[in-house]
């Protein structure tokens, strides 16, 4: 027992002596750290680092330590060609030299870097690609907390001189690489410290290389507000972004001013600038954040891809000049959670005026509102339509004749609401015009709406518009009725589309066009110097086509070489089936009143002719077409009359052909019922005639007859002159004939 006690006592003494020795050694090292930290122990330090599985190498080095005071210890370190390597992620940092002189205050836990010099080196970091990140709930957005962590770090660090120069670093992932040259300069002037860091290089991503410049400068005292300046530049010849943010960070606020510019952010916008854009983020400890933004903006539009002609218009209209706007916001953000944010963001553009256009745009975002929080209103006015016409004259969007002669005002207002993704949008628009020229008028008003919403994994667009014409008179071109040109492309000729058609969007439309009896559209025929009133009540709807009616009310005209009264022309477009015509024209003769009525399909109408006092249909048609009774017709005219009647009842005379017959003296009319082809020869001027159509098939008469006048015919006969021989003779006779 005693022995045991002695042994324990001996051990205790030895332990005490060892402890005392260790304390003594620690005290010695504490007071004389140079004993442990000196060049002789540097290789030993390398072994220790390696034993800790860290790969740090250097060629040669010096280190030493001194005790400046009881609590402050000073370390100097100089390493030649130090290198640090790490396997995953791959990191290699090799510097030319590191020279550090620093004093650590053990009592306040504060490091004073008296001197840090890194004259050059290279740091390479390579990532093998993004690893699938675990789904984590989004962290609260509390930028002040992040900023304060930086501020805490800065509070524990002091420096006299930091000079890190020309350190090249390469940061690369699978598809992106950043190469830059970094410099960090830290100085101290009196109580204020100044740290400037710059990195300049280029970013390679997606086969595109863009220059990159980043600057950070922090200035401030230990316990005072910290001034910061952050600047950056990224971009190439296509797109550029530069931004400078400067401000002050205190315990409870982050204030700042942004000056930023974006060049070519998207097609159609040349640049966007924010100048002296002020923001203020206030947040008491743990309380809600109160964010305000007051940001003057300016932007310049560009004609985008529209071509050279539109570029000229842009410049001429002054549309390339900056457009002012203001972005202001006031948002409350409780707990740093944006889901709970409340407030409003508003963008209002200054009135935009060019020579021929005026525009006002306002947009606002109701923060905290779940459905359609985005609202916008655009007012677009062309106060001088003729100026707009002149501007667009040589562009692909030129105003066509005869509208290009009009002058006056056209305005468009669009109001809309949308969700943040713009997938669910509702727009309402209204348009109205008051245009006039010396001879024309065009007054109409229209309103409608556009709805965009997702439906069955597609985007559905619903377009509705109602257009009502007011006082309107338009000129028609001077077209020769005998040779009407094709005005629209033939719908039967279908151009092949390039590539597969995207059917991600389903488009539905419904447009009504009205010109009522009180305000019919007056169409002026330059050919006939005639005003034709037109009433419209049309509906164009997807899937149903055109429906409604087009009416020409009573008007007087010179038809069939007589004073005629067009009682009515109604073209009805039923919801199903072909367009139908119903028309009635009264023609007055000395002894008769004729009524020509057309009805049936528009492209093949049927006609009836009635008279007062009653005449046979043949006599009435004779009077109508040739201006003389049936009894006075020549044989050729009689033949023409029969053909005309055949074509009329067979629906072979279109409304246009009937107009031609009505407006031009008729020489002869032919009709080939087998081919359904109508042919007419009309007299253009005295001695000149024109054949409208010709039938090549089915001429059964051996010989040819050419009518030279009312009773004269040039006749060619082929005759067999002998029964027994196939002998033929041909005669050409100029004949006069009379029937009775």
């Amino acid at each position, binding site marked *: 027992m005693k022995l045991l006690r002695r042994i324990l006592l001996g051990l205790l003494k030895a332990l005490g002596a060892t402890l005392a020795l260790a304390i003594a050694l620690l005290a010695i090292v504490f007071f004389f750290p140079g004993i442990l930290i000196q060049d002789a122990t540097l290789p030993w330090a390398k072994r220790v680092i390696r034993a800790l599985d860290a790969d740090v190498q250097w060629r040669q080095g010096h280190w030493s330590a001194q005790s400046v005071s009881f609590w402050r210890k000073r370390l100097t370190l100089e390493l030649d060609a130090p290198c640090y390597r790490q396997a995953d992620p791959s990191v290699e940092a090799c510097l030319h030299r590191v020279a550090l002189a620093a004093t650590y205050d053990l009592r306040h836990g504060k490091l004073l870097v008296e001197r840090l010099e890194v004259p050059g080196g290279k740091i390479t970091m390579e990532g093998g690609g993004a690893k699938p990140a675990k789904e984590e709930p989004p962290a609260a957005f509390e930028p002040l907390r992040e900023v304060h962590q930086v501020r805490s770090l800065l509070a524990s660090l002091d420096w006299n001189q930091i000079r890190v120069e020309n350190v090249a670093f390469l940061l690369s992932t699978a598809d992106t690489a950043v190469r830059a040259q970094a410099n960090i300069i830290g100085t101290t002037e009196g109580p204020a410290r100044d740290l400037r860091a710059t990195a300049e290089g280029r970013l390679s991503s997606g086969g595109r290389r863009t220059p990159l410049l980043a600057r950070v400068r922090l200035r401030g005292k230990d316990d005072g507000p910290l001034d910061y300046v952050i600047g950056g530049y990224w971009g190439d010849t296509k797109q550029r972004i530069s931004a400078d943010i400067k401000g002050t960070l205190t315990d409870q606020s982050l204030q700042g001013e942004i000056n930023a510019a974006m060049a070519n952010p998207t097609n159609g916008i040349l640049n966007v600038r924010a100048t002296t854009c002020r923001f203020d983020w206030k947040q008491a400890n743990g309380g809600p954040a109160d964010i305000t933004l007051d940001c003057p903006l300016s932007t310049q539009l560009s004609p985008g891809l529209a071509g050279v002609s539109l570029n000229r218009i842009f410049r001429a209209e002054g549309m390339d000049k900056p457009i002012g706007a203001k972005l202001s916001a006031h948002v409350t953000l409780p707990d740093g959670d944006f889901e709970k944010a409340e407030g409003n963001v508003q963008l209002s553009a200054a009135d935009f005026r060019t020579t021929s256009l005026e525009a006002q745009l306002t947009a606002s975002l109701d923060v905290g509102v779940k459905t359609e929080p985005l609202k916008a209103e655009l007012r677009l006015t062309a106060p001088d339509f003729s100026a707009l016409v002149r501007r667009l004259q*040589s562009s*692909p969007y*030129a105003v*066509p*004749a005869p509208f*290009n002669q009009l002058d006056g005002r056209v305005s468009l207002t669009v109001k809309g609401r949308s969700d943040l993704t713009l997938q669910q949008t509702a727009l309402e628009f209204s348009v109205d015009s008051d245009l006039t020229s*010396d*001879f*024309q008028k065009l007054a109409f008003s229209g309103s409608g709406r556009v709805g965009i919403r997702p439906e069955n994994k597609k985007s559905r667009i619903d377009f509705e518009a109602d257009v009502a014409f007011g006082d309107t008179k*338009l*000129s028609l*071109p*001077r*077209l020769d009725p005998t*040779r009407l*040109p*094709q*005005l*629209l492309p*033939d719908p*039967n*000729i*279908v*151009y*092949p589309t390039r590539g597969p058609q995207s059917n991600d969007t389903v488009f539905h439309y419904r447009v009504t066009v009205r010109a009522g009896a009180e305000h019919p559209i007056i169409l002026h025929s330059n050919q006939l110097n005639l005003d034709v009133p037109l009433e419209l009540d049309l509906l164009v709807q997807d899937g149903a086509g055109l429906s409604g009616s087009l009416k020409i009310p009573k008007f007087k005209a010179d038809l069939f070489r007589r004073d005629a009264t067009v009682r009515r022309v109604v073209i009805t477009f039923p919801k199903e089936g072909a367009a139908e015509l119903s028309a009635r024209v009264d023609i007055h003769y000395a002894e008769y009143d004729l009524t020509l009525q057309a009805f049936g399909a528009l492209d093949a109408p049927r006609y009836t002719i009635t008279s007062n006092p009653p005449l046979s249909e043949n006599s009435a048609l004779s009077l109508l077409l040739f201006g003389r009774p049936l*009894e006075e017709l020549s*044989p050729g005219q*009689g033949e023409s*009359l*029969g*053909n005309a009647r*055949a074509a009329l*009842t*067979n629906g072979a005379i279109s409304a246009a052909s009937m107009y031609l017959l009505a407006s031009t003296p008729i020489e002869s009319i032919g009709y*080939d*019922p*087998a*081919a359904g082809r109508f042919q007419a020869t009309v007299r253009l001027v005295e001695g000149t005639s024109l054949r409208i159509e010709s039938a090549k*098939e*089915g*001429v*059964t*008469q051996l*010989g*040819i007859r050419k009518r030279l006048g009312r009773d004269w015919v040039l006749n*060619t006969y082929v005759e067999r002159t002998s*029964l*027994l*021989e196939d*002998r*033929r*003779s*041909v*005669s050409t*006779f100029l*004949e*006069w*004939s*009379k*029937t009775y």
Partner: protein
Amino acid sequence: MRRVIFSLLVALTAGPDLLYASDNSVETKVCDDFVLWGPEELSFSSSELHLLCGDTKARDWQKIPRSQALFHLKTFLQTRGYYYPEEVPNSGKLLEVRLGLPTLVTALDLQQMPKDVESWTATEFNGERLTPDLLKTISEKVTHRLGAIGYGCPELETEANPKTGRVLVALKSGKRQNLVSVHTEEVKELAPGTLRRYDAFVLGDTFNAPLLPLTASRAVNDGIVRNTYFNVKCETGGVHAEQKVLPGKPRQVTIGFGLNTDRGLSARASWKHSRLGALGSQVALTATISYKGNQFHSQQFESEGKWYFLNEPSRLHFQPRLILRRQSDNRLDVVGGEISFAPASTWDTQKVGWAASVGPNLRGERTLRGEGRRQTFFLSLVGNVSVMSHDFEWQRSEPRTGYEWTSTLALNRKGFLADYTASSWQTRFTHLWALSRQSRRQFIMGVRAGLATTFVRDEEGGLSNLTISLRHFLGGAGNLRGFGFQELPGPTGALTSFFSSAELRSTGLLPWDLQPYVFVDAGTVSARSLDVTGDWFTSPGFGLRWPSPIGVFRLSGAHGFALGSHPTPDPRSHWQVHFTYGEEF
């Protein structure tokens, strides 16, 4: 020189499409600051120019913006077959457009059609410029084709791809039906049903659209009505036709003067009554005087009629005819006349029309100068039969398909009001086939043959006893084209003549609708009746047909050869050129 001729031939045979340059080197100046460059110079109508260049005379249409002019231009170019014009970029005011090349039809795709239309080779339009008008023509032709096989009211849908030149025609509705009724508009002077004698169709049989206008044209050409036409309506039971009639006045007086290829200068006066009685009998009187210098002059009075003698409308009728004439030429001076009275009728099936007549014909002639008998009376029993397919009749002015056969037999015997016995038989057959069609190019094959013979008694003097009208000749555009008109066998003529011809004609091969053809004719004449063992002649040759707006011209060159053991070279062999107007193969 040889190269120039070869190039010209290549250009001509390749058709008009290759006659223009294949690049965009030809300038069309539309207006002062609007120019087109293309493979050919285009012309625009005044209305088109108003929309392209503006119209100083029309209010508010003086200035046409460039974009609008381009829109109109693209539409107008569609009508000319150009679908991919390109604006030449330049910064000036000048608007320049390259037309590119016109789109040609490469294929016609017929869908949902009955088999007989689907089997149509459909290459007819290949190589044609694709234009809206051509689409209309294609649609009409398909409609016409459907109409000919029973589709009274077909509805078609047409679509064309301007990139590939492919045209699609689909039958949307319509079905094959029979023609079940014909309702004719009443004509005051005529008994109901009178116009049915012109029917080329058979009621109750499959509807055939071309037969309706053929029927109408028969009635109009016969003069019974001034004009008539049919409307058709399709109902579930079949196709119903309604015949509309413009009767016109029944009597017509005509006075004219002109030229005849045989008789020279001619003057003619005629009177015709085309609706005598309720059944539409007819009578026509014609007096003609011709003068061809000292070489030929003639006077003729002719009266002919159709007497429908039954109580009901019928095709059976009498054909009375009276002719009085005097003809003088450098060989003969003959005064004569003839009178005939023949019952006649016609029949029609869906494909063919028949006509036949048989009756006495009394002819009297007095020869004042020339060979033959001084005075002749000649009573014959003359029978005529003719068969003509409807397509041949329908396309008579532009023969392409079908056949015609005519045969005339005249019997007489001395003693029966005839001074001598001279029966005759003449028959002639023509058949045309349209061979495969490629684009506008089509070959038409034709064969024809004719036999004419007169039976005489040698004891009555044989050939030398006959009047000139009973002697037979060959040569001329109507049979052996390598010989002159009636050159064979010589002035005396023959008792038998036989010929056959084959001709291959092409349409669409040359510009301006010129139609080249090659042919070979062969024939024989004999001094004996119904004998083809006499001298044979042949005449291969070539020619050109031009269907001009005033009638058909034919120019042929052929070499006539006399076959057999004649001295070489035979004096009768020679080159012969024929230029005819109005004659067909």
